[in-house]
């Protein structure tokens, strides 16, 4: 609680005690003093002024500033009205509860704002720079490219850079939501915002603070509130009309019925006052943006950056998702998937050994993946006479034996009887001394959890999943059928991807949003073009952060169903709040006009509803997997 709020609290307590005393004196002790109206008025005016003087002051000041329909003014009119109709104790109570509600509301909003900003608190406060053998703390803004900084255990990495000394495990959870620490040692790139583990690191800075990952992310999150959802804009517009309409209705209610029906002015003025108390749209104006803010906060806790609440809204209407294959669904790295020996007398170990030695001198990605799979060191002294047969493969002498490794064409060229492999991927056939030994299947592996992710997407109401790839037909279709993807388009050039996405966008309408998921490197145009552009695996990639609407800080495809769930829950809470707040207000307005509801219900419909809506909005923060 800040100083202002504490002061308010004391005033509330003081007023409550005095008010209690006055009520006891009036109702229980039945002092004669209360029988004269002006004495009674004076006594009640005392607690009223303690609790409400600032409201009256603000109301007067704001009228001079040209702000007429402001809530302070309306509260004043309502309570003056109550005084005027002889309801002294109610007038004090309404003001008292209004202030209690305001205090609680301010406190709750502050608390929630704090907990959300804490979630996003990845901003490093200082950088350690060595000056004359001593470490000095400086503002990260003042560090230049090429400077050497020291990151001590437990500190936050302040700028992007390269480790030049030391090794440690760094915690990237603030950026990626990934809880397993990442190992870094000499030569590794390190990004700002991570928290250093147990080792001291010496880092050469490669980016200025403003260009560092952490600054980019902070800017993005802070700007997120400027891209507003349709619901938010609706609320802003609604608020602009709601107050004047209710106030005019109050005036009409105070004047017309007594004139037409004749009779009791006081009773109708009381009803009009009830209207004035309910005329602030605060519950909506605060809780709706707060819900969105909480949703964005919950997402960023999980390593998902959402660039605006409009995308939360769009995500909840997402019906079609288009995926890029390489780097998005698959890992984007070639790996030996299978070893298929040609006959019973060759085992898998021998097969991969021959293949690895054959590729010993090559540094082609395929060769690299075979050597990785072999794992042991290759003694290149045993390899000679390597000869590359362009477009076919390689011929080489290993331990004095002639080894062939390459594609089907090579086998045909050398007249070797082989068993064609029908599985999708790149196949390297191996023959030793003219005899077929077997083949090695190399393919780009599907990411962990991809199957589960696609299953969950369908459960969450995604109608159609599409995969686009520049890869060969058999490879693409194999991946698609494994993951039950609805549509596949293969052998596409980058421009074809744009045409495909445009076509899909053309087929959908406003209520069926189309998302594109890519790794952000060469599909920036598609990311921009689609309703929702989701970039993956973009740790440190500025292009992706800029082009996309939603950025997944790690490569995890399972974050897509998660962000969808966060979005739909957030939207759910927003709608609950709108329906609840408007419902209660409308109900109390009607009951008030009929003379059934009193001031108490009106105060509840104003601040009570606000507080409940704020508490409800806070639930967005706790959305979990």
């Amino acid at each position, binding site marked *: 609680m800040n100083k*202002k709020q504490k002061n308010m609290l004391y005033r509330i307590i003081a007023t409550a005690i005095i008010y209690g005393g006055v009520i006891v004196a009036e109702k229980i002790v039945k002092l004669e003093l209360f029988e004269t109206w002006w004495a009674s008025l004076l006594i009640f005016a005392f607690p009223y002024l303690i609790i409400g003087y600032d409201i009256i002051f*603000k109301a007067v*000041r704001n009228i001079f*500033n*040209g*702000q007429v329909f402001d*809530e302070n003014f309306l509260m004043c009119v309502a309570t003056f009205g109550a005084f005027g109709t002889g309801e002294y104790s109610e007038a004090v109570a309404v003001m008292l509860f209004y202030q209690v509600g305001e205090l609680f509301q*301010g406190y709750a*909003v502050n608390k929630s*704002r704090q907990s*959300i*900003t804490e979630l996003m608190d990845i901003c490093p406060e200082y950088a350690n720079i060595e000056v004359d053998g001593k470490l000095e703390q400086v503002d990260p803004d003042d560090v230049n490219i090429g400077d050497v900084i020291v990151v001590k255990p437990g500190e936050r990495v302040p700028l992007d850079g390269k480790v030049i000394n030391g090794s440690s495990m760094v915690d990237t959870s603030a950026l990626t939501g990934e809880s397993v620490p990442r190992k870094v040692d000499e030569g590794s790139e390190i990004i700002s915002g991570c928290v250093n583990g147990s080792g001291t690191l010496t880092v050469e800075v490669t980016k200025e603070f403003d260009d560092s990952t952490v600054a980019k992310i902070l800017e993005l999150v*802070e*700007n997120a*509130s*400027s891209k507003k959802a349709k619901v938010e804009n609706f609320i*802003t517009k609604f*608020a602009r009309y709601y107050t004047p309409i209710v106030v005019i209705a109050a005036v009409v209610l105070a004047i017309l019925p007594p004139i037409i029906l004749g009779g009791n002015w006081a009773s109708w003025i009381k009803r009009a006052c009830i209207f004035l108390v309910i005329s*602030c*749209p*605060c519950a909506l*104006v*605060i809780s709706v*943006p*707060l819900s969105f*803010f909480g949703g964005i906060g919950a997402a960023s806790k999980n390593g998902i950056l959402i660039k605006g609440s409009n995308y939360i809204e769009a995500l909840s209407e997402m019906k079609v998702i288009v995926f890029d294959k390489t780097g998005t669904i698959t890992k984007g790295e070639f790996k030996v998937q299978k070893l298929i020996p040609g006959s019973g007398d060759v085992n898998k170990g021998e097969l991969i050994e021959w293949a690895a030695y054959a590729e010993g001198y090559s540094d082609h990605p395929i060769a690299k993946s075979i050597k990785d799979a072999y794992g042991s060191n290759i003694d290149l002294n045993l390899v000679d006479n390597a000869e590359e047969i362009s477009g076919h493969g390689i011929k080489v002498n290993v331990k004095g034996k002639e080894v062939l490794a390459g594609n089907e064409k090579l086998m045909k060229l050398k007249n070797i009887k082989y068993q064609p492999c029908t599985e999708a991927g790149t196949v390297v056939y191996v023959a030793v001394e003219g005899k077929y030994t077997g083949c090695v299947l190399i393919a780009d592996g599907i990411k962990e959890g991809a199957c589960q992710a696609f299953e969950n997407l369908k459960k969450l109401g995604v109608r159609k999943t599409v995969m686009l790839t520049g890869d060969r037909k058999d490879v693409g279709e194999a991946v698609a059928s494994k993951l039950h993807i609805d549509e596949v388009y293969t052998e596409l050039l980058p421009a074809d991807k744009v045409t495909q996405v445009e076509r899909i966008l053309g087929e959908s309408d406003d209520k069926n949003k189309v998302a594109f998921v890519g790794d952000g490197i060469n599909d920036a145009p598609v990311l921009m073009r689609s309703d929702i552009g989701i970039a993956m695996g973009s740790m440190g990639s500025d292009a992706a952060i800029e082009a996309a609407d939603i950025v997944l800080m790690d490569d995890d495809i399972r974050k897509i169903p998660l962000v969808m769930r966060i979005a739909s829950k957030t939207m759910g809470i927003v709608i609950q709040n709108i329906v609840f707040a408007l419902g209660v207000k409308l109900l109390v307005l009607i009951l008030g006009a009929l003379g059934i509801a009193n001031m108490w219900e009106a105060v509840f419909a104003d601040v009570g509803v606000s507080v409940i809506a704020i508490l409800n909005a806070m639930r967005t923060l706790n959305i979990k997997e």
Partner: protein
Amino acid sequence: MKKKFKLQDLDCANCAAKMEENIKKINGVNDANVSFMTQKMTIDAEDEKFDEIMQEVIKVCAKVEPDCKILV
């Protein structure tokens, strides 16, 4: 030119919306955003007249919410 300012004692969301609306009406302001959540204000206005425009912004904000201070 775009500039960001911190706001102190911005206590009411409705006021933030009103401030934003009124700032946008100032001559020379291209875009403005008052965020109740982050307690920050972003003003995008013409370069040459920025200081003048800021004076105007401060006036407008004081009218809507006199308690709220703009930290420059």
